[in-house]
């Protein structure tokens, strides 16, 4: 047993912390929240230079050749900094290319992703707002030159800046088994017929409606097997859920640390509020729950990384971390008091993100049901 980060992971964490402090102050978070693209080219290039975008890409494709487990520390630091650039989107789309892409696709996309030249966006969810296979209804119909995509994708992060979509489509209808007939396409975002409209969300996290109207895609853009794309999606969802847990725990860390320092500074009735038992009780709960969730996230991430069965543990991690982050940020606002409820206070950035992140890649109820199924109930 070894429950420590590796030396590489420690270095990665420190570098990321320094990077965020230097290039990514909260003033920039606020600026990007109001900005239509939410993007800054210089910071993106800097992240690419540090190797983050190619971290999980093997060296032969121009990457660093690191593990998924390594990226957990990056996601934590990004959550802590409220990092909005499309790192998350691009990395989770990289995973299925690694897992199921053809040699040509790998050679075509991976080096450019590692260089920071390509931004990917995952076009998975639809107006049904579910992560189940039954929710995939955007049609890809075969014609003589390839496929024609029609339908609406909804809640699509970073579509506004993406060069490519990883679009999950239905190529065949199997009423009894919706997992069959799902096909993944790598779609050029400039293809005629794609209409992108921004959604205004609680987290200002750049989600979009993406309409595909007679979008023509060549057959070689299929990622993995025709009609058999769902296993790739399933693995991606597990990895994305865990990455989201890490991001949430990084945010929770910020909230706990900042509430602690505020509780020591803020004086009422002649004493720091952190000396009152009731505030201490809130803070110890926030600290304990966050750290328990963090340790379980590492456990689930390790299972994922090892390729071991992890469906139940991923769902446990996501359900628990989502609940914990929501409680932690809600109590965080309470500890800061009235100032915490203002737009100008930083704790609000985390409160709003917790509401969003808890629902992405499966909300706690969805994951509890998955745990129940995995337990054989």
């Amino acid at each position, binding site marked *: *047993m*070894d*429950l*420590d*980060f*590796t030396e590489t992971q420690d270095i990665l964490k420190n570098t990321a912390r320094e990077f965020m402090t230097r290039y990514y102050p909260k003033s920039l978070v606020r600026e990007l929240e109001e900005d239509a693209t939410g993007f800054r080219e210089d910071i993106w290039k800097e992240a690419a230079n540090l190797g983050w975008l190619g971290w999980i890409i093997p060296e032969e494709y121009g990457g660093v050749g690191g593990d998924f*487990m390594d990226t957990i520390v990056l996601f934590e630091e990004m959550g802590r900094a409220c990092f909005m650039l499309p790192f998350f989107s691009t990395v989770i789309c990289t995973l299925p290319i690694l897992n199921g892409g053809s040699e040509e696709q790998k050679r075509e996309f991976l080096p450019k992703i590692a260089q920071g030249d390509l931004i990917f966006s995952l076009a998975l969810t639809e107006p049904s707002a579910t992560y189940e296979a039954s929710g995939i209804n955007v049609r890809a119909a075969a014609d003589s030159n390839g496929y024609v995509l029609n339908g609406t994708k909804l809640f699509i992060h970073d579509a506004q800046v993406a060069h490519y979509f990883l679009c999950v489509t239905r190529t065949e209808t199997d009423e009894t088994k919706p997992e069959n007939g799902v096909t993944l396409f790598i779609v050029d975002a400039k293809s005629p017929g794609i209409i992108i409209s921004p959604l205004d969300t609680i987290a200002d996290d750049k989600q979009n409606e993406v309409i595909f109207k007679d979008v023509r895609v060549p057959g070689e853009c299929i990622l993995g097997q025709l009609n058999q794309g769902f296993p790739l999606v399933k693995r991606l969802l597990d990895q994305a859920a865990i990455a989201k847990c890490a991001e949430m725990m990084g945010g929770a860390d910020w909230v706990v640390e900042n509430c*602690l320092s505020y*509780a*020591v500074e803020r004086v009422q009735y002649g*004493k*720091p509020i*952190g*000396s009152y*038992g009731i505030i*201490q*009780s809130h*803070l*110890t*709960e926030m*600290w*304990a729950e966050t*750290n*328990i*969730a963090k*340790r*379980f996230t*590492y*456990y689930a991430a*390790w*299972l994922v990384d090892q390729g071991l069965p992890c469906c139940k*543990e991923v769902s*446990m991690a996501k*359900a*628990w971390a989502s609940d914990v982050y929501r409680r932690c940020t809600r109590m965080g606002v309470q500890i800061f008091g009235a100032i915490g409820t203002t737009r100008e206070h930083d704790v609000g950035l985390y409160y709003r993100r917790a509401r969003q992140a808890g629902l992405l890649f499966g909300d706690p*109820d969805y994951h*509890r*049901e998955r*745990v*129940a199924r995995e*337990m*054989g*109930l």
Partner: protein
Amino acid sequence: MDFRLTPEQETLKKEFEDFFAEEAKRAPEGWTGRTAAAADSDENWAYHRSVAEKLAQKGWLSLPWPKEYGGREHSYLEQLIFNEVRAYHGVPGVDNGPYIVAPSIIEHGSKELKQKWLPKMARAEITWCQGWSEPNAGSDLASLTTRAVEDGDDFVINGQKIWTTGAHRADHIFFLARTDPSAPKHKGITYFISEIDKPGITIRPLLFINRKRKYNEVFFDNFRVPKKNVVGQVNQGWYVTMAGINFERSTVGAIADLRREFRWLIEFCKGTNRNNRPLAKDPLIRSKLAQLAIEIDTVRQWAYYVSWLQSKGQNVPAESSVSKWFSSELAVRFANTAVEIMGLYGTLRQKSKYAMIQGKFEDLCQYSLGLTIAAGTTEIMKNIVARMKLKLPR
């Protein structure tokens, strides 16, 4: 990171598994699997003692002790495995002796004390109850007032202890008494060990909420303890209680108890129909069960983490307090959720004609109340985290 056990640890685990799975089959009727229920009835006590003797024969009561005292110097993770496997199978056999009294003697006791007492504990020849709490010294244990006054070769003890689990079964008591009332409260306390069957001691039952006899009040009235039975220095008893640095503190056993009991609840939900379908198919019940599974597994991973920190040489007062706090609070929530899921049947007592799962959750609903109080209340656990980890001001 690597969450795997080594092949040697797996082998050890298998050895423990085989033994405890077999011992679990010998449990008397009505045995709940909770170790502290050993004192509840003659049958339970006999079971507890017979397992203790077998553990002694295998040398398993002294696994964490130094080799010079007959131990095997088990690492924290090896102890974790033992504690988890034993608790998971709901097998008793280990009392306060090897895990609370022994470390104090090993770290602070005289050569004579070590030679006299440690072998008896390793051989399961003696049993212990703990005389720490008093009516006015609970969480604030150091304010205890039981007096010990020197008289020749003895100390003479006067005062009262309370919540003394199993005092009516044990043949020995380890306790704290005040030897210097003028010193600051932590600095005037002495740690004693003694046989219990002697003049000057009265033991009265204090029935637990479930009617069972677990607790007692213990009255000392000119009770004499030889000076040679002082562990450590006179007036240094508070610091003697802190012994046990080489013992794992993850509370993993408390979580293993829940894992065993959770299995019963799952089987019940799969096998019981309500409204023409198994309870396990009801979405509300599935959600409750999944939430319990999540809380059990997350706290279990935390316990492993605590052990891991210890194995790196870290002192873990805050982390182990979190384990104790979460596992005990979870036990209360779990028992109450189980009874709620079982509905009216859940409240039937053990020997009722219609009782289900042998009334075990009716019992646990009450038994678990002690868990969030004994050995440091949840509030005290939070205080430890607040002070030692979060460095919050007083």
